[in-house]
């Protein structure tokens, strides 16, 4: 009961959304499944990227370079897959290159105290430059990652076919969100991470290695960004295009803030974004409203601003996010 009174509004919202989804499902099964399916495939890279942001900022490092890390992941994943004709090799290459970019951010900002936002901007420029410089046209994959059905779970009405039937990266994303949420709030690693992000000098006094925690978290988070990129170039579509991340890394930062730096809420927020996109294209397709395509395209961005304007002030970022830590110069 204590838990419920603390989380009342969140729980009630979640229940309301789930009930609404099933009412919708009862009214029109086919449209409901296709729209929520669309929403989820839109949300997968955003959820992963938002987790990248959460891991970084919970330990005190702002990551503006998610966009670039995703782009590098998508790029190296795709071209490795095209060269080896193995999608799995591609995914591994994507994750590893993402980790490399994560390590770059970690070392420049945590070890060498570079301004975190500038480091992120540098990552984005380098990623755009590298992926365009080495881009080769005419490469293609014959197919995307295979679909997998989870037995039993995929038979649940509505959420079964949407969440438990899909590509391996989408399925992994569910697991990652659940694990990250649990780890962040229920394990020793999580407590340490949050301590390092809230009050590093206190954490340092308590014997936690602040620098090591930050290096580790930001580097691992980079791997998730690489996975998000791999999703784009190997699971959602079998192609790589220049600049194909198209601002998703930044959208993910907004989702992270909207989700109050919590993986599960970020997951819900990303689904909400996906659903509004699905709604807009559904309305367009069925001629209920006729908006120019450009206005449909800008909907997620406007929504981001509206949502942030509503959410900002109610949520609080980790206190030390953005500040370098120098041992012995506690604030």
């Amino acid at each position, binding site marked *: 009961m204590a838990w419920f009174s603390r989380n009342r509004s969140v729980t009630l919202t979640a229940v309301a959304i789930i009930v609404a989804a099933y009412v919708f499902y009862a009214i029109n099964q086919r449209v409901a499944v296709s729209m929520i399916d669309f929403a989820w495939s839109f949300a997968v890279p955003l959820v992963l990227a938002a987790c990248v942001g959460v891991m970084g900022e919970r330990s005190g490092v702002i990551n503006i370079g998610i966009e670039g890390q995703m782009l590098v992941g998508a790029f190296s994943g795709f071209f490795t897959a095209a060269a080896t004709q193995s999608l799995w090799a591609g995914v591994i290459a994507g994750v590893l290159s993402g980790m490399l970019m994560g390590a770059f951010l970690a070392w420049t900002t945590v070890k060498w105290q570079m301004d975190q936002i500038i480091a992120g901007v540098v990552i984005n420029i380098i990623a755009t*430059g590298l992926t365009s410089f080495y881009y080769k046209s005419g490469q293609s994959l014959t197919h995307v990652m295979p679909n997998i059905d989870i037995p039993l779970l995929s038979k649940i009405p509505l959420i079964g076919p949407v969440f438990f039937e899909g590509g391996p990266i989408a399925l992994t994303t569910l697991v990652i969100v659940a694990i990250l949420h649990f780890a962040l709030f229920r394990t020793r690693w999580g407590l340490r991470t949050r301590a390092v992000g809230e009050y590093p000098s206190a954490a340092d006094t308590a014997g936690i290695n602040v620098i090591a925690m930050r290096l580790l978290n930001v580097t691992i988070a980079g791997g998730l960004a690489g996975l998000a990129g791999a999703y784009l170039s190997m699971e959602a579509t079998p192609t790589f295009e220049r600049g194909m991340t198209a601002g998703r890394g930044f959208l993910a930062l907004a989702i992270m803030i909207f989700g109050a730096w919590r993986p599960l809420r970020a997951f819900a927020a990303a689904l909400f974004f996906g659903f509004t996109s699905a709604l807009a294209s559904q309305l367009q397709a069925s001629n209920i409203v006729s908006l120019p395509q450009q206005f449909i395209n800008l909907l997620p961005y406007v929504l981001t601003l509206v949502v942030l304007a509503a959410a900002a002030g109610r949520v609080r*970022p980790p206190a030390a996010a953005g500040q370098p830590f120098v041992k012995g110069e506690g604030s």
Partner: protein
Amino acid sequence: MPDKDVAPPPATPAAAPAVLERGAPPTPGGLWGALIRYQAIVVPVVGLVVAFVVGALLIRQQGVNPTYAYKTLFQSALFTRDGLNQTLQRTTPLIFTGLAVAVPLRVGLFNIGAQGQFIFGALAAAVVGYKLHSAPGIVIILVALLCGLLAGAMWASIAGFLKTSRGVHEVISTIMLNSIAVNIIDYLINNPFKEKGQAIPRTPQIAPQAFLNDMGIVPIGFPIAVILAVGTAWMLRRTTLGFQFETVGRNKAAAGYAGIKINKMILLAMALAGAFAGLAGGIETLGDIHRYESGFNANLGFDGITIALLARSNPVATIPAAFLVGALRAGASALQFDTGIQPEVVDMLLAITLLFVSLPLVAKLIFRRYAAKGSALTSGWGS
């Protein structure tokens, strides 16, 4: 910070008296001293040299002789009449977009939205330029530039307003506003402002009497940009407004206690930034493109970020930084034409230079204890 007052025991007491530990050490004389005093210039130059070495490796890897590639690049950007004109043509709006990022940085705001503000300014100037086709040239030019300036300022003010009233971080809001601007403008040039009977979505050409011509090889906008950059530096150093800007940027709490209206400064700085970016768009439209067409001027706003950071948000330093970026961009197309090297190699060069300029480690490695302490430019989400 109690630890700082406790000076560590000097290794050789005679050479390093305790006084030295408190402030900056006295700089030695001679060449070494000069290098230390001008490290704000030395560090970028070192970064540039390293960037060109790395760039040479990238170019060699593509099977092209780096010396030949660089020779082509600079020859075509600087040592031909047309090339130098091209370079200055590109430098002009870049000085403005550099200022559009540098000025808010002084107030502690990171304006990533120069691109959106820039394209709104460019479109506004183009629309005025063709709608007023029968007016005298000077009238069109002034009205078009004013509209461009206002369009940019208004677009940037949305971000300023969201920041002051709702606490939305400007990095996110300006990025979103960039994407929104691209879509709105795409709609506008496809519908109300579209040139009739054209397959490509673009506005009609502006009236020919409103073209901003070149004076010799120097575009008219260039001296204006230089004057404005110097004027901005003067504003920041010598006026009350500049002092208020700097105070807010360095210490919000102190500024608040001193009675400076922080929100007003944030709104003003964003509006001013937007005005610079919008003016850049107007000058680009009147001086170079003569209409609005998407795909042109694709990166001028984003290059502003690189320029402002290279210049360490010093308005006067945006001039050489913009010239560097302008020359590299102008040379890159000749490089691609001649050798097939992708023009994105320029982005790599700039990113590496930027990395060197922004890494405190580099100055520390070169200058040891004489390294200038850079302050954090940007703030976290909360403040």
